[in-house]
């Protein structure tokens, strides 16, 4: 087969794969500019008069439906998402990076068991833990607080940070740290000046991944908080109103909620790629 034909075939295949994965996203973006009437038209048509009504409703917080006006607090939910995800990732990095270093560098009694226990948090179905946790949260007055939710979010983000960053620390030769210490630097300086910079791509990748996981979480906030602290994932439920489902607003809400993660992914892409190629440039 000629190489030109192969190339053409490859392009066709890549477009097909791309369409397969991106079409739902594209459709959601289109939906966010449609009225409910356009969305529910059968057969569906890509030709419609675009409207900003959905976005305006989200931003102003007034949703007018056939059965009257409904107050929605979507922008507040969006802010909650940002607060919860950013705080969870920051706390996880502060706790997880030194812990990952300890697990990577030192063998201590029960170390492997501890690391595995942290990983096992990811095995259990969250609902199983959540109902008893609800009881505790109400007793401890953690219900419906950012603090409580960030704490529970550690179940999602901390194991990710710990296990990903641990692998990166294990890949960095201990001798590099020892060489730095011989040059007259203390343990702490070595950790901050050598270990962390060398594991930075891993830390960035782990931070981004756990941010996405935290951002997409639904069940924790649904049960452990009210609308005061709930993120967009739970907030989108408000669009299922008495008079029907507001598909247009749901789509617009989705588009708005994807933007922060998308922006973050684009900005950290360099680190992600660096992280993947680190293995290739290691001495």
């Amino acid at each position: 087969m000629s190489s030109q034909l192969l190339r053409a075939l490859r392009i066709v295949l890549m477009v097909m794969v791309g369409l397969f994965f991106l079409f739902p996203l594209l459709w959601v973006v289109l939906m966010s500019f449609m009225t409910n009437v356009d969305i529910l038209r059968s057969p569906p048509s890509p030709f419609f008069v675009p409207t900003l009504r959905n976005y305006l409703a989200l931003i102003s917080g007034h949703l007018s439906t056939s059965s009257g006006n409904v107050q929605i607090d979507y922008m507040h939910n969006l802010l909650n998402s940002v607060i919860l995800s950013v705080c969870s990732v920051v706390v996880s990095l502060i706790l997880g990076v030194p812990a990952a270093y300890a697990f990577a560098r030192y063998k201590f009694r029960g170390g492997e068991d501890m690391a595995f226990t942290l990983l096992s948090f990811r095995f259990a179905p969250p609902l199983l833990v959540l109902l008893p946790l609800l009881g505790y949260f109400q007793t401890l007055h953690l219900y419906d607080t950012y603090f409580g939710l960030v704490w529970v979010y550690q179940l999602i983000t901390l194991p990710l940070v710990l296990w990903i960053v641990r692998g990166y620390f294990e890949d960095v030769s201990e001798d590099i740290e020892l060489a730095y210490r011989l040059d007259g630097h203390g343990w702490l300086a070595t950790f901050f000046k050598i270990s962390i910079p060398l594991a930075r791509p891993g830390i960035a990748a782990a931070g981004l991944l756990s941010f996405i996981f935290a951002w997409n979480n639904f069940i924790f906030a649904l049960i452990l908080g009210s609308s005061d602290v709930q993120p967009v994932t739970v907030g989108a439920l408000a669009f299922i109103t008495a008079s029907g489902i507001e598909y247009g607003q749901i789509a617009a809400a989705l588009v708005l909620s994807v933007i922060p993660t998308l922006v973050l992914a684009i900005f950290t892409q360099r680190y992600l790629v660096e992280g993947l190629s680190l293995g290739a440039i290691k001495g």
Partner: protein
Amino acid sequence: MSTLTLTDVSKVYPGSSERSVDDVSMAIKDGEIIALLGSSGCGKTSTLRMVAGFESVTSGTIRIGDTVINRLKPSERNVAMAFEGYALYPPLKVRDNIAFSLLRGRTAKAEIDRRVKAVSDMLELGPMLEKFPPNLSGGQQQRVSLARALVRDASAYLLDEPMSQLEPQLRALLRARIKDHMTLHRMTTVIVTHDQTEAIALSDRVAVMDKGLLQQFGTPEDLRERPANLFVASFIGEPPMNLYTAEVGGGELVVLDERGTPAFRIPCQPGEFAGRRRLSIGIRPHRVHLGAPGNGAAGGSDALIPGEVLSNHWLGDHSHAGIGIGGCFLIAVADRHVEAGVGSQVVLRIPRDAIHIFDDETGLAVAHGLSA
């Protein structure tokens, strides 16, 4: 630029019952270059890492000058080290890797540049100074690692397998340069290596280690001519020393083959080994002279032993001949081409001072050379 003294130093790793380093004592003089020589797992790297401060000392003391450094942090010991795995900082250029330790010590910029240039010229690193470590070959990285250690002003220099990755020609050249540099600057240096040629070429004294124990600490000549025990005798020298078991008879040593039958006899003074029944004897391959049968009269008081040539290899500048004597096998090395073909008869002349006697049970040296 200081003495380095180890006194009864032992290391037991957590979870292990064995001593990886067992009561090692050695006094390294100011400006002396020594080599720790041994096979993998003999405790040489553990010893080096204890001096650097990366491993705790289980018992014993390590001193630099008069200061006990056991409990000092690595950063407080003022030792420089070249790592076996190079341990270069990947994000820094070669130049900055070398200068790294100097930048901290308030050394003037011009002085840093001068020293980096001197050490990189010595190690042929000039063209690589602006490159990054991941883009260098193993041998080049190793030289950078060596340069980073040598550029410092340290009390002691620890070099772990410093030239294992270098090409043979460059290695020979750099060995000489580094040795001159270290001698000139009176650098107290410990080199860890499993390569005896390197140990002997670079160092003033060599410490042979096995199973955590210091077997012998002496000059290369000591190790070759006066090995302290059977381990050193068999470890030092290429090809290794010929070793046999012998029984003491009246006025002669009866050398036995593997099945215990007498293979050949070496005359000795009557009563020289009185009180002993069995001995181990060793003969260096380089000290055995090969002659044609009938020329024996020239031997004087040396032992003359007939044998049969079993193999004969010319290695370009010397010959390795395998000789069968009864049931024993002996390797002889001659620095000339040996004509004798396989199967021909020869007479071996072994100088009396080339016969090493060891205790059969403890392996400790009893005598180096028979009395005439």
